Structure formats: structure tokens, C-alpha cells
């Protein structure tokens, strides 16, 4: 069952016009700045905002097709929503929050509580079942909210900034667990985020939203490596690397090795900002720990900058000014020296 969106609606000063299909079993990350319309899009899918025109359909079920057509109320859409502010019911324990959906669907009290408990254990907060939301940490509350969405046997998942309320240390673990839960869910999955790393780690595809419109959409690797505008480049135009880390050295998938600083051992995900990669005509002196020469595969304009695509074992993208291109006399097929400080490589456990 694919989720098919053709959303047109107006909200305050924002005109939202989005066409997007999310396949069952696919995770799409909606990435955009604050006010780009990400949350409004989720609200329209959940049935909390009616369309002005267009269509929201899940398989053969048409949820909304404008004011003239029948409108399926949110309570009948069976969308598992994780709100940005979570909105856990403050007067109910974690367990009762999760049992709410099953109870509404008519599951008996004992059975609903057992089911809720099972979900709390599954998301890793089985020991907090009796706690009120106010007593939960940010990460725990986020997990309870996820369990509440999943326990209701939704047809699709809508997650609004699912990692926003979590501190950095809890974030890594939660991101990993969230990925596992997303993968285990059979329906379409849509998540909203402003964080490129979250999008890369959690989603299969990215749709970049700017001022109510999708400016670029496609597989994660493509969007991150080939952003078509400055806006997209700034949001998600990072170099992402997967690999194994041991003793301060990162062996990148597909060959290549980089010296990194303060990195955990084991499977990791690393990001390098394109502007952190320096290019030289001759081998540079100085302190960078990673220096190698590479062929220039392509030059792409992204706003007022040029993205230099490098070949070889480390297919990174560097971002420089057009002036630098001229001064370095860079051209496709030429060779440059590449320097990358170990401290510019951000490494996360994968």
C-alpha cells in the first residue's frame, strides 16, 4: 500500500504544494528548515489539516480529496503519529499512554495493558511503565511516544522530529533503535527532520522541502552527494561514509582509510563537511593527517559555490568558491592534492 500525496493547502503565510509517493516498506525523510511546511504536511496526512485541493490516499483508501470529496477523520486513518512535542497524556502513566490506542480499538483492558507493556519492553523502557510522562527523561519519553504510535497497529508511520528532545549521548542509541523499528514496520514511513545525519541514518529517500515545495527528492546518497541548490546543499550536502573504526583509523567501505580523532571502535558512520576539505595544486605541508591526491570527476555549481567531486577510493565532495577553481586551475580530469584534518571527521557508532 503506497502513500500517495498531492497536497495543496494554505497555512498562515505558507502555501504548501507537495507531490510525493511513499512506498510501503520505504522510509522517506522530509528535510527542511523551520517553517518550510514539514509539520503541516504530516498534519495533512494524519487528517489534522484538511486539503484545499489534491489527494491523500493510502492504497485504495482515499483519505482526503479536497472539500468536495468525503473526508476521512483522523481517528479512522490509523496513522501512527509521533508528534514533535510528543504529546504524551500527562495524566496517564507510560503504560496507560501506550494502552490508549488498543483500548480505543476495543481491546480488553487486561490485554491492552499486556500489549502496551510488551511494546514498552520492545522500545527499551519496560522499567518505566508506571512513570508519568513528567518523570521520564527526554529519551525515555521519545521511546514511549514511539511505542504508543506502534502499539496501535497503524497503517503508516508519521514521525515529526523523532530525535529532537534527546541529548547527544541518548541520541545515538535512540537513532539506532529507531532505525530497527522503522525497518520492522511494513507500511509507508515518513519522518520529518532538519538534521542531515538523522535523515541519512534513518531514511531510504529524502525529500527536501523549501517554503512549501519539494525542491529535490530521491535516494539519500544521491541527494546528499548531488544537491541541486544551495538550500539543499546546506541542509543535507554532507559527505557520508560508512566503515569500520579501529585504533583511530577509519577503514571506509569500498576502500580508503582515514585518520580520525576520538572515534569509537567498530562499525561507524562518519560525516565530513564539503567545506572542510581543502584542495591544493601541490602536496601541502602542515598538520593535516589525511593527505592524498585524487582525480576531479566533476564540477557542479551549487548556488554561489562549486562542488568538486573527487574520484578514487574516497569519493568525497569538496565545496570551494568559483575564485578558488580559477586560482587552482581545476578542471575535470585533472589531479589535485586533498587535505582533511582528522578533527573535521565526525564519527558516530552505526
Amino acid at each position, binding site marked *: 500500500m503506497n502513500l500517495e500525496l498531492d497536497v495543496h493547502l494554505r497555512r498562515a503565510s505558507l502555501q504548501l504544494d507537495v507531490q510525493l509517493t511513499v512506498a510501503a516498506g520505504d522510509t522517506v525523510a522530509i528535510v527542511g528548515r523551520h517553517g518550510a511546511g514539514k509539520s503541516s504536511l504530516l*498534519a495533512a496526512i*494524519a*487528517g*489534522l489539516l484538511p486539503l484545499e485541493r489534491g489527494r491523500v490516499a493510502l492504497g485504495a483508501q482515499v483519505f482526503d480529496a479536497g472539500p468536495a470529496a468525503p473526508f476521512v*477523520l*483522523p*481517528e*479512522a*486513518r*490509523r*496513522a*501512527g*503519529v509521533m*508528534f514533535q*512535542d510528543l*504529546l504524551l*497524556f*500527562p*495524566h496517564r502513566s507510560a503504560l496507560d499512554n501506550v494502552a*490508549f*490506542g488498543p483500548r*480505543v*480499538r476495543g481491546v480488553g483492558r487486561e490485554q491492552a495493558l499486556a500489549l502496551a507493556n510488551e511494546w514498552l519492553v520492545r522500545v527499551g523502557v519496560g522499567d518505566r511503565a508506571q512513570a508519568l510522562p513528567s518523570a521520564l527523561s527526554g529519551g525515555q519519553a521519545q521511546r514511549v511516544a514511539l511505542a*504508543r504510535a506502534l502499539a*496501535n497497529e497503524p497503517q503508516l508511520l508519521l514521525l515529526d522530529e523523532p530525535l529532537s528532545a534527546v541529548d547527544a549521548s541518548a541520541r545515538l542509541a535512540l537513532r539506532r533503535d529507531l532505525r530497527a523499528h522503522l525497518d520492522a514496520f511494513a507500511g509507508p514511513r515518513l519522518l520529518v527532520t532538519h538534521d542531515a545525519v538523522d535523515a541519512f541514518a534513518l531514511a531510504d529517500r529524502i525529500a527536501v522541502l523549501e517554503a512549501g515545495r519539494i525542491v529535490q527528492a530521491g535516494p539519500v546518497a544521491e541527494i546528499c552527494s548531488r544537491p541541486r541548490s544551495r538550500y539543499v546543499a546546506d541542509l543535507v550536502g554532507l559527505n557520508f561514509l560508512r566503515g569500520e573504526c579501529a585504533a583511530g583509523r577509519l577503514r571506509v567501505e569500498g576502500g580508503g582509510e582515514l585518520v580520525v580523532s576520538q572515534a569509537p571502535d567498530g562499525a561507524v558512520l562518519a560525516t565530513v563537511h564539503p567545506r572542510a576539505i581543502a584542495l591544493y595544486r601541490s602536496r601541502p605541508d602542515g598538520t593535516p593527517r589525511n593527505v592524498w591526491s585524487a582525480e576531479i570527476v566533476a564540477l557542479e555549481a551549487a548556488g554561489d559555490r562549486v562542488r568538486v567531486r573527487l574520484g578514487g577510493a574516497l569519493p568525497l565532495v569538496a565545496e570551494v568558491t568559483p575564485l578558488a577553481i580559477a586560482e587552482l586551475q581545476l578542471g575535470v580530469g585533472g589531479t589535485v592534492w586533498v587535505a582533511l584534518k582528522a578533527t573535521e571527521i565526525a564519527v558516530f557508532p552505526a
Partner: protein
Amino acid sequence: MTTLRGPVRWLIGVPAAAAVLLFALPLFGILLRMPWSRLGEQLMSPAVHDAMRLSLLSSCSALALAVALGLPLAIWLASGRSALRTVARIIVMLPIVLPPVVGGIALLLAFGRAGIVGSWLDSTFGVTLPFSTAGATLAATYIGMPFFVLAVEAGLRAFDRRYLAAAATLGAGPVRRFVTVTLPMIRPSLQAGALLCWARALGEFCATQTFAGNLQGSTRTLPLACGVAMESDPELAIVLSLILSSVSIVVLFLLRQRWLAPR
């Protein structure tokens, strides 16, 4: 709050103490003049029993009416902003500031035997509200219900409706959302409103006497009995005053978290 020091301490402390005394002395008066030895005997008199029964009946019925009519009213008032709502709110809140005797006269003109609605009630159903317990209840509702509506509307306005959206996505329809999310989340307002409403209904004196009269057994509630006793049996009046003060103190104690706790 900063600690008061130096001469300011006296400048503030003396009038503050005087203010407390203003309220504490009458309470002491009741306790000091209380005929403790004859307390049991006084409480056993049929007149006191009648008044207690009537007071409980009329104040509890008033509360029930306030909830049944006032909750929907509060929901409507809180559901938006319009000139009609503003006018309705002013009318409903009027009894809070209106001299109760005026309320009683107004009730009489509307629901009395010759009143706008009263004459119709009388001729169609043979129902007369004045001089009946129903009349006493109506007067108590008229005085008490605004407090319930006021508190509940404030609670509903402060309530974050996004929780309803969350409940909707979990499959809950409007009735279920109201019962399982809205009501529990505005419970402090409901409790405060109900307590204030009931306490005001219980203490209602002037509107009841003007509208429903002062008949033992049908409209003479505790405050009315208290007023009557003041002229014939002052000792009894003191006993009844003690009962009413005790109830009020209990009500304030129950409200303490919401109204009396320093923030």
C-alpha cells in the same frame, strides 16, 4: 519574596496583622460564645434537622444542575470568541457581583407565579417555584453556577487542544476524546469550580429568601434558619454559624492547592 527588614517591617507588619485580626476575630467570637454544653441538644432539634436536610438537598441539586447545564455552557464559551459569547458570559457572571436581593427579585419576576415563565409554568403544569424546595434550589443554582462556569471555562481555555489531535490519531472519536482526555486534564478546574459552586449554593441567603421565601421544611435552609434564629434564639444561631463556618473551612482546605498555595 525578599525578607522584610528595618522600619519597613513594622510599616507592613502592623496593618497586615490588623487585617488578619479583622477576619480572625469573628471566627473567635463564634467559638467563644459557643454554648458547648447545649451543642448536642441544639443540633438535635427538628428545625435544625430540617434546615440541614434542605441545605444539603438544595446545594447538591444546585451543583448537579450547574454541572449538567454549566459544563456544556463552559464548553461553548471556551470554543471561540464572538460578541454573542461575550454577552452570554456577562449575563451568566452577573450573579457573582449582583446584590443577591436583586437576584431574588429578578428570579421572582421571571419564575414567580406572575413572572414571565412562572405564570406559564403555573397555568400549563401547575408548577409553582416560589415557596418550594425547587425554588430554593433554583436560587442556589442562580448564585452558585457562575463560579462553576467561570472555573471550567478558564480550564478549557488553558487546555492544550493538541492532546486531542494526538488522541484522534490513536483512533478516539470526539466523545471518547472528551471523556478520556479533556475531562481528566481539566480536572483541577472542575474540582475547584464544583467546590466553589457548592459552597456558594450552600451559603445562599438573600436570593432564596426573596424568591423562595422562608418556610421551615421547604425553603428554610441553614443560612435562613440562622437568620431567623438570630432574632428568637441567638444560641442556636451561633451553633448554625459554627456548622456553616466549618463547612467553609473544609472547602478552602480542599481548594488549598489550587487557590491558596503560594506560587
